[in-house]
């Protein structure tokens, strides 16, 4: 036989051995396949995202309605108005369409433009309107069709086109075609904080998956080594046994690839069916990027084999048994420090915050790389730390002593499972910190509790009286004020002059002690100044009584003059755009929807401002819940691998266990020692994970300019779940402990 | 005869008087039976005749004054004897076998024969074990030799006990 053919034979022999090993062999193969499969499914799903996002972005670009300057009115133009609204926390993409001739442009996914009083909706919106009568009442229009798939981001997108006849050149834009790309895209790649979140998120998601896969291919390794010893007895050499072992792992990894593909398809189907918002894609969008898919298909089995071979480096399989060298090799520290140190160096520049003005400077990739290196470093440092720690432990009760001695004897198996826990917990704590940091930044406005927090900015020319009348009839609206805004200009700086009473103005700044007749300034000169107004007139409002700091919500919006009615003292106010400030009874669940309904019926383009910025905060809350769920799934997986390790170790030690029972050792002592044996490494891992995770979180919080806090809730929950996993593992190992300590195991073999 | 070779061998370390020779022999080999003087002198006389020893007489004659010394021929003879393997002794027709077969032929309880024999063997083995744990290394070696032989017998007994049924079928017509 040629060398190549012999190698194939040996790999094949290994693969056959993995399935021919009876029930234990099958269990081992199933565990490896499940572990690798879960990892592969996650990897494939991540590999699918770029293509899916690109596809939905392409469709979104095809329907953009950027108006060109000076498009002449013609047979082929239409007027378009933005009627986007919200339902609950979900955004509903909406446009008003008003053709100006016989051949108006038609947005993708639409065959005929809706006539006035008609609307075309996306299937998801149609379903939502069917389920929510309140939403169905929002537009006084008949649904005459649905938007086709080529006109939607994804199946779950809420979108509509509303036929209109009220748009003017003032309130609408003129278009002669859709999909006119404008340089300087208005929807950019996202804020730096969000980019950072997604980059770090992917790293945190993938790291434990890697660690888990690496430990999955080592499931049942001891039994495999014993089988290999039997092969050595009949004459295979050390290199052959390694290839046979590689073949066994390869069988599991290939099966895992299949399992992973099936799981990924299942996940895609589930996402297609249930996902909402930005992560909803059509099935045909969800094709993994070919290069990434190829990389997964090649790299996963290759890494699995490498992990197996490197694990076998510590094991000498001899004809009459297996010798483990793990105790003779002392773990060294220095090389384990290299990666985390590089990680710290990469993360160091972030401590002063991200550059908000320059979102694509690549710093988020640097951060992601830093996080990845730190997490890998954690997995590398942990074995050393556990060894160094248990070597210094001793004394105590008998159960403690048995456990510690066992860990001193061989801590490798225990640590492998724990490094998975540690990496996921550290990553999740870091991510939780980042999420709650972003949350605290975006949600600061929502914490204010003044009246008149909601505002309506009309677009169409509807008389003020109609608005106030309609608003006062809206359920949930307690009171309404009209804020007049005059846009002035001074030395080229624009100043918004807002005229309303104290209660309505307090939305813009803290006006404690405000009385009618006063004037407040935000970043305006102290004295009486003349302002240029829009229609070439000038106006000189009274000088500010006091300079105030803007509230968080209007911070960064430039100069502002807040004028109470009495301060005008009969001075002539030029015509001004009204803003309606609404005191909404937010304790009524549907009040906000009613307000949106009133606004949309009067003027579909009117903007309803909800002070909570609830959507971002809700996204954050959802992602935190998602993170927690993900952590629990990961920890349960790791618990399963710990269980396999413990069961295997118990089986290997059944004779010693039976002898200990013969000597009258209490089951309590044995159980306690198994529990401690699992707990001590987990505890060390958790301490390290929590401290590293919290430091990472602090850096990431600083990066998004959030106050640095410690996320005790996240630490508490993840630690509690980790503790539960340890307890669960021990509890699940008890039946096999009881079985293995039966006296039958005392018999001479 | 091993006594003559033993005495001859003892002379290799230097000439000795007859009395001296007997004491040394008794100390080294004579665990159970010590030599009589007569036996020493008759053996020496035979060796003298064969030319394996010679006599160095000292002044003041008499039998006790004779010193025996080994000759070159004697040394050669001792070397040959030590190097020559002993013929293994076989006990194909041991008394025990006869007893077992007879018991089977006459319808007596053969297992009982074996069991009482085992008890007897073990009794002796216990005795030897006690002796060797009280004695020195030489005692231990000698007792162990006997113990291993007895153990061999016992193994045979166990094996025979396990095969009594087949043996009965063969010896009975």
């Amino acid at each position, binding site marked *: 036989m040629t060398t190549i053919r012999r190698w194939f034979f040996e790999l094949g022999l290994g693969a056959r051995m993995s399935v021919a090993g009876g029930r234990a062999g099958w269990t081992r193969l199933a565990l490896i396949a499940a572990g690798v499969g879960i990892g592969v499914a996650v990897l494939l799903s991540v590999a699918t995202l770029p293509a899916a996002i690109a596809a939905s972005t392409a469709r979104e670009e095809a329907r953009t309605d950027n108006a060109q300057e000076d498009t002449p009115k013609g047979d082929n133009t239409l007027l378009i108005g933005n009627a986007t609204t919200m339902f609950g926390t979900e955004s509903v993409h909406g446009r008003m369409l008003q053709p100006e001739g016989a051949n108006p442009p038609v947005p993708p996914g639409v065959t005929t433009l809706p006539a006035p009083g008609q609307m075309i909706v996306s299937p998801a919106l149609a379903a939502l309107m069917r389920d929510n009568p309140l939403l169905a009442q929002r537009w006084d229009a008949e649904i005459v069709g649905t938007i086709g798939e080529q006109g939607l981001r994804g199946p779950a997108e809420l979108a509509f086109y509303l036929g209109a006849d009220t748009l003017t050149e003032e309130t609408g834009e003129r278009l002669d075609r859709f999909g006119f790309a404008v340089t300087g895209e208005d929807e950019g790649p996202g804020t730096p904080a969000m980019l950072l979140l997604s980059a770090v998120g992917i790293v945190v998601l993938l790291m434990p998956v890697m660690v888990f896969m690496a430990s999955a291919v080592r499931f049942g390794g001891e039994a495999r080594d014993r089988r290999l010893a039997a092969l050595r007895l009949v004459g295979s050499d050390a290199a052959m046994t390694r290839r046979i072992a590689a073949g066994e792992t390869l069988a599991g990894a290939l099966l895992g690839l299949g399992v992973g593909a099936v799981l990924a398809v299942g996940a895609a189907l589930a996402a297609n069916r249930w996902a909402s918002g930005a992560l909803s894609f059509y099935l045909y969008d969800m094709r993994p990027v070919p290069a990434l898919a190829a990389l997964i298909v090649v790299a996963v089995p290759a890494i699995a084999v490498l992990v197996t071979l490197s694990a076998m480096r510590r094991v000498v399989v001899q004809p009459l048994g297996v010798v483990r060298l793990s105790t003779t090799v002392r773990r060294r520290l220095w090389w384990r420090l290299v990666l985390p140190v590089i990680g710290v160096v990469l993360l160091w520049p972030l401590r002063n915050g991200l550059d908000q003005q320059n979102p694509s400077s690549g710093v988020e990739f640097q951060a992601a790389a830093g996080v990845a290196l730190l997490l890998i470093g954690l997995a590398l440092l942990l074995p050393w730390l556990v060894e160094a720690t248990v070597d210094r432990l001793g004394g105590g009760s008998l159960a403690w*002593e*048995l456990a510690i001695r066992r860990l001193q*004897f061989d801590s490798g198996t225990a640590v492998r499972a724990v490094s998975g826990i540690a990496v996921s917990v550290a990553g999740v704590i870091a991510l939780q910190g980042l999420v709650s940091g972003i949350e605290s930044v975006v949600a600061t406005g929502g914490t204010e509790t003044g009246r008149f927090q909601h505002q309506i900015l009309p677009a169409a020319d509807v008389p003020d009286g109609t608005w106030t009348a309609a608003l006062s009839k809206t359920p949930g609206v307690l009171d309404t004020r009209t804020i007049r805004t005059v846009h002035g200009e001074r030395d080229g700086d624009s100043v918004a002059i807002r005229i309303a009473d104290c209660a309505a103005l307090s939305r813009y700044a803290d006006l404690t002690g405000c009385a009618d007749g006063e004037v407040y300034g935000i970043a305006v000169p102290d004295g009486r100044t003349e302002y240029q107004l829009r229609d070439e007139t000038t106006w000189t409002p009274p000088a500010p009584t006091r300079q105030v700091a803007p509230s968080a919500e209007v911070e960064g919006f430039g100069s502002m003059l807040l004028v109470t009615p009495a301060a005008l003292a009969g001075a002539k106010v030029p015509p001004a755009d009204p803003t309606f400030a609404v005191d909404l009874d937010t304790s009524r669940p549907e009040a906000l929807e009613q307000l949106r309904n009133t606004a949309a019926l009067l003027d579909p383009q009117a903007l309803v401002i909800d002070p909570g910025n609830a959507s971002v905060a809700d996204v954050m809350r959802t992602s935190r819940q998602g993170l927690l769920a993900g952590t629990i799934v990961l920890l349960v997986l790791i618990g399963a691998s710990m269980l396999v390790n413990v069961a295997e170790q118990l089986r290997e030690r059944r004779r*010693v266990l039976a002898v200990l029972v013969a*000597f009258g050792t209490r089951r309590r002592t044995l159980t306690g020692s198994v529990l401690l044996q699992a707990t001590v490494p987990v505890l060390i891992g958790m301490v390290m994970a929590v401290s590293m995770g919290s430091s990472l979180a602090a850096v990431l919080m600083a990066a998004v300019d959030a106050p640095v806090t410690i996320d005790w809730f996240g630490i508490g929950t993840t630690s509690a779940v980790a503790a539960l996993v340890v307890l669960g593992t021990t509890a699940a190992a008890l039946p096999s402990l009881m079985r293995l300590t039966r*006296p039958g195991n*005392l018999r001479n073999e | 005869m091993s006594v003559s070779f033993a005495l001859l061998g003892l002379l290799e370390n230097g000439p000795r008087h007859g009395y001296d020779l007997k004491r040394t022999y008794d100390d080294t080999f004579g665990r159970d039976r010590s030599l009589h003087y007569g036996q020493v002198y008759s053996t020496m006389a035979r060796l003298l005749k064969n030319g394996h020893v010679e006599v160095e007489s000292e002044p003041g004659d008499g039998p006790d004054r004779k010193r025996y010394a080994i000759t070159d021929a004697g040394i050669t003879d001792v070397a040959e004897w030590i190097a020559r393997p002993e013929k293994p002794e076989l006990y194909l027709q041991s008394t025990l076998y006869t007893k077992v077969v007879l018991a089977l032929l006459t319808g007596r309880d053969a297992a009982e024969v074996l069991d009482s024999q*085992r008890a007897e063997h*073990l009794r002796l083995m*216990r005795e030897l074990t006690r002796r060797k744990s009280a004695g020195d290394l030489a005692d231990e070696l000698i007792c162990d030799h006997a113990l291993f032989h007895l153990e061999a017998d016992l193994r045979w007994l166990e094996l025979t006990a396990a095969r009594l049924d087949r043996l009965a079928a063969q010896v009975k017509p």
Partner: protein
Amino acid sequence: MTDQALLSAEDLHLSFGETKALDGASLHVRAGEVVALMGPSGSGKSTLLHCLAGILSPESGRVAYAGRDLTAMSDSERSGLRRGEFGFVFQFGQLVPELTCLENVALPLRLSGTSRRAAHRIAGEWLDRLEVGDVAGKRPGQASGGQGQRVAVARALVAKPRVVFADEPTGALDSLNGELVMKLFIAAAKETGAAVVLVTHEARVAAWSDREAVVRDGKVREQEYAR
């Protein structure tokens, strides 16, 4: 003689599936005597030993120790008895591999609640007594087979048990090491007054006993204790 017995089994029956391991076995052990349990492989020797030690419960019959019925005890009571009154030596693989030899010997004492320090001091004395004081700090894997068995003997005797159960204690050793283990074992047992139940198929090992009992087909032929 039954009334004088420290440990006795009467008419024990126990089957593993189809196989009758014990089929009416009876045995009596007096305080301080060494009884050898002999018999071919699979005759039920080890099963009888496990029943006598309260590790296995017979299906019928009675095991009595110092007038107490073992078969009527709960598992934890029997465990307590094994901790305090019994000691064990097996053929191999009985030492906890990750504990040092000293810690292994100290184990029974610590199981009975002796402090770590006192247990280690007593264990050290026992290792010296069995001439293996030099392996005290080593793990069993670093000691030779003979040394390991002597460590095991020290562990069986360290808590001053009244009965030591030894199941082929020299089975994995060569003659010389076997001799040494038996010599030190029996001497130490006699000195402490412990009775020994010695399972062996080797006559030379059985010769260290005071009397023998032969197990065959789950039954015991017990030699009368004549002295």
